[in-house]
């Protein structure tokens, strides 16, 4: 019984059945990451069409689901990349706060972190906050965004990110550091800014 099931899961199905079989899964995977229904539908659609084109190259080495998910991940990265490009076009002060700008020459805080009062669970349920988060993400420079999206949105290990982006681990950590610094400040400025500002230490 088990044998039959594992064979039918691994053996390629007719592309006509893809949507019925994997559509919901791929859509869920996308929506959770992209958080935009229309965009998620488009990404799933592009994934199936791309899969159809490269179906001949599919060797059956991984399961069909894994193969389709792989294509989907690339489409999600493309989506964020394009958003990044749009943001770069519209916004000229991209990465206006580099990590160095936060500290004085002695390495002490110059732009001090403000207190955030937030419950993560409640935050992600707030549409306005998610919009701010997306805006901040899309303001990252392309290199930073790619690394950060791979790491956080796709959940990739640093090792794999370095391979994908063709950089050394140290470089990767620097990029992620810069991305986090930027994102932290962006969220602070655009969401937590109304918190009382403390100057004293």
């Amino acid at each position: 019984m088990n044998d039959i099931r594992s064979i039918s899961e691994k053996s390629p199905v007719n592309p006509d059945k893809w949507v019925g079989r994997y559509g919901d899964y791929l859509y869920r995977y996308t929506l959770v990451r992209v958080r935009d229904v229309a965009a998620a539908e488009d990404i799933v659609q592009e994934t199936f069409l791309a899969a159809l084109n490269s179906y001949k190259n599919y060797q059956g080495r991984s399961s069909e689901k894994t193969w389709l998910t792989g294509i989907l991940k690339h489409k999600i990265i493309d989506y964020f990349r394009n958003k990044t490009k749009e943001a770069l076009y519209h916004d000229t002060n991209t990465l206006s706060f580099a990590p160095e700008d936060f500290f004085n020459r002695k390495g002490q805080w110059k732009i001090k972190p403000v207190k955030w009062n937030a419950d993560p669970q409640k935050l992600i349920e707030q549409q306005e906050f998610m919009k701010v988060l997306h805006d901040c993400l899309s303001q990252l420079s392309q290199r930073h965004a790619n690394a950060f999206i791979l790491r956080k949105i796709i959940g990739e290990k640093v090792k794999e990110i370095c391979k994908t982006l063709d950089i050394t681990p140290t470089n990767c950590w620097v990029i992620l550091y810069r991305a986090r610094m930027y994102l932290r400040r962006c969220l602070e400025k655009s969401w937590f800014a109304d918190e009382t500002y403390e100057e004293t230490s």
Partner: protein
Amino acid sequence: MNHWMFNCRKVTRMVSDSLDHKLPLYQRFGIRIHLMMCKFCSRYRNQLLLMRKIIGPKMMDKKETDLSIKLSSKARERIKRLMQNSRNEVS
């Protein structure tokens, strides 16, 4: 702060690194000491952890298993149609 200790700039970098790989013992120790004394770096660390919770894959995995999220029938039909068209073009 004394120069033999890590300054805030270095601590922020190491706190970020600690999210990606395990740090050597002296660094972990140094960060700990620093965080005990520095309100802003503690804040920074808490904020990175919060960001990780919000954007982290764990949060997504939880929602990924929400089976009530389904591709709309409209989108489903559209995709099927487009796939059919694309296959007809090829053959």
